[in-house]
């Protein structure tokens, strides 16, 4: 293992491994401090960035941050690395890659071709040399288009996940929140429920509720009840209406084990859901959630900083050609991302890294009440990620999730973002909104006092 050094302000700084160097170069973050990995001073942090800028990209292939023998995510990353795709940047350092990514040469076509040649550690490294505006500028150029019953990620479009959670999975409560979201033009990425229990019976009841509404109103979208992958496999075998298979994933084998998942389990689920063939305009059927801090929280980070581990989760995701991936950026709490500033930075990093690796990246822009953040931070993040070209955002009624006890974006926030940036829903969903009279003449969502869709709610209320 080689050491990395740089001299700053007359002082020589030494970093004993690539993992140490990556951690020290990361922006200030409570989780890295908790893990004992953060730079010990502001100067050491910048010294690490100078040293990191000089590291050849090829080094990341020769010196894995977690050993090949002990971790299946490392094996996945190295075994699937596409040398031909890597060729255009093979001779560059991390600093040179930053400049190339920002240059006009790196257009949508070049970036799409490069994705299989990049590893998570390379994109994490280059993100540490980038400012927030750099992360926006590059991510905006990347196009990742996926489809199931709606098409996600087209230029000029922003999709939303409608999240009608309920603390006891009460179907009437879920239906009420579902109606609210649909009337506000939400739900083209997915109608996705976090169930309060993982019981197959409860999950199936919710799946059937969503499937019934989607079929009855011919909504061009997909449903997902975010249960454990083994529950989905079980339900698919029993003929439940599963559109997408969901799983939370992380960037190390041990952290995935703490979620009760392995790559072979995901392989099995992926095969099963593809075989169902329930998509109409596409066949991508996996949905993953990630988020900085989960590997540290499971004591499974192997001395790697939380952002680099997060990028490694995207290597797991891209193996399954997913329809949707989102980072749940501020969910765990201030021990990983302390305040609005740290959450914003992490959101931009995750989106940038995921997109560069070829993923359809969305975000759950969120915070807990013990973090130093508020709804203005949500608005700031939403605006920057809209500019950065996020595929979708998660939306809850009033931005308050009553089941998970955290705040996310609201359906109103998505209307705002579409309005100020001139973004439109997924094309199939937009056509459906027009067909039921919810699209106004300027492409926005009409404010209605009564509408045929309210039948969803009237049956509940009756």
């Amino acid at each position: 293992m080689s050491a990395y050094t740089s001299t700053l302000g007359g002082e020589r700084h030494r970093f004993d491994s690539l993992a140490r160097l990556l951690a020290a170069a990361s922006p200030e973050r409570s989780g890295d401090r908790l893990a004992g990995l953060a730079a010990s001073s502001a100067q050491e942090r910048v010294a690490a960035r100078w040293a990191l800028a000089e590291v050849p990209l090829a080094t990341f292939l020769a010196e894995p941050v977690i050993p090949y023998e002990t971790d299946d995510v490392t094996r996945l990353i190295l075994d699937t690395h596409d040398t031909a795709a890597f060729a255009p940047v093979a001779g560059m350092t991390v600093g040179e890659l930053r400049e190339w990514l920002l240059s006009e040469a790196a257009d949508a076509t070049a970036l799409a071709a490069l994705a299989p040649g990049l590893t998570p550690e390379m994109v994490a490294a280059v993100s540490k040399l980038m400012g927030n505006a750099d992360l926006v500028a590059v991510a905006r150029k990347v196009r990742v288009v996926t489809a199931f019953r709606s098409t996600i990620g087209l230029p000029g479009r922003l999709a939303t996940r409608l999240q009608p959670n309920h603390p006891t999975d009460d179907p009437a409560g879920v239906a009420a929140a579902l109606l609210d979201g649909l009337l506000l033009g939400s739900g083209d990425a997915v109608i996705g429920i976090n169930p309060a229990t993982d019981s197959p019976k409860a999950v199936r009841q919710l799946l059937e509720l969503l499937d019934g509404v989607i079929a009855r109103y011919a909504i061009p979208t997909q449903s997902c009840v975010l249960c454990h992958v083994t529950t989905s496999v079980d339900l698919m075998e029993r003929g439940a209406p599963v559109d997408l298979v969901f799983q939370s994933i992380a960037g190390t084998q041990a952290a995935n084990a703490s979620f009760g998942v392995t790559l072979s389990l995901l392989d099995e689920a992926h095969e099963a859901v593809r075989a169902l063939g329930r998509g109409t305009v596409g066949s991508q059927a996996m949905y993953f959630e990630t988020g900085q801090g989960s590997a540290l929280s499971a004591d499974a980070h192997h001395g790697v900083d939380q952002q680099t581990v997060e990028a490694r989760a995207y290597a797991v995701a891209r193996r399954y050609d997913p329809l949707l991936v989102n980072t749940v950026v501020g969910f765990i709490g201030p021990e990983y991302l302390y305040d609005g500033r740290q959450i914003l930075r992490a959101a931009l990093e995750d989106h940038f890294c995921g997109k560069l690796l070829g993923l359809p990246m969305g975000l759950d822009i969120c915070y807990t009440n013990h973090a130093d953040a508020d709804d203005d931070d949500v608005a700031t993040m939403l605006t920057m990620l809209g500019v950065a070209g996020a595929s979708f955002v998660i939306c809850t009624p009033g931005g308050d999730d009553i089941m998970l006890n955290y705040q996310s974006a609201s359906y109103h926030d998505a209307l705002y973002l579409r309005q100020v940036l001139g973004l439109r829903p997924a094309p199939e969903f937009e056509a459906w909104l027009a067909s039921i009279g919810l699209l106004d003449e300027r492409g926005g969502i009409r404010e209605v006092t009564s509408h045929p869709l309210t039948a969803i709610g009237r049956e509940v209320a009756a």
Partner: protein
Amino acid sequence: MTQLPAPTGDLALWSALRRHTQARIGLGRAGSALPTRHRLELQAAHAAARDAVHSPFEPDAVAAELTGMPTVRVRSAAPDRLTYLQRPDLGRRLDATDRAHLPVGEWDAVFVIADGLSSRAVHEHAAAVVRETVARLASWSIAPVVLAEQARVALGDDVAHAMGAAMVVVLVGERPGMSAADSLGAYLTYGPRPGTTTDADRNCLSNIRPPLGLPYETAAAKLAGLMGRARELRRTGVALKDDSDAPTALT
């Protein structure tokens, strides 16, 4: 707030639907944004939750409500709230000086009242839960109640171990949501050992928060029942199921 205009839309429908969910549905719109009234209501809920996180713990007030019960005060190794929020490891450990001052005895159980993430929840509910539970444990030898500041659940392991108690009940202020800033959790651990006991070794009752959440009597009856069976089985956690149907979850 009442002078602000009420939301527009299908009022009868939304008020009927609100019987089924506390979600903030049917809020209406001002352009693309929320009407003023709802924006301010959200801010009020957020402010209550933030204040719950940052309000200082007042052990004297809780001790006063524990009429006739001996109490002892401790702090965790986290010196202040800012450190506490960023360093969960410190919040799980007793301050070394305080550990040395804890009384030692052959107790069946110790109750630890920990501020956690909502001292408001603790101020409003913890003493009542302890009183109601202890009243159901007539033959038990109960240690002095420990009032712990800047404390997380696992601090109870350290406390019970230092005092020689066979099991520990930690009553802790849960992470406040916007719809519930005063929710109390109860965690029961038999034979805790600092550093090796994990969340899977505990039983949990969450959302103790009358009148909207679990009532004191129900929480106390469940806790006392679980404690009795923990004593027989000599363990808690996944092996000890709460046989009632109330929702329980580790937070």
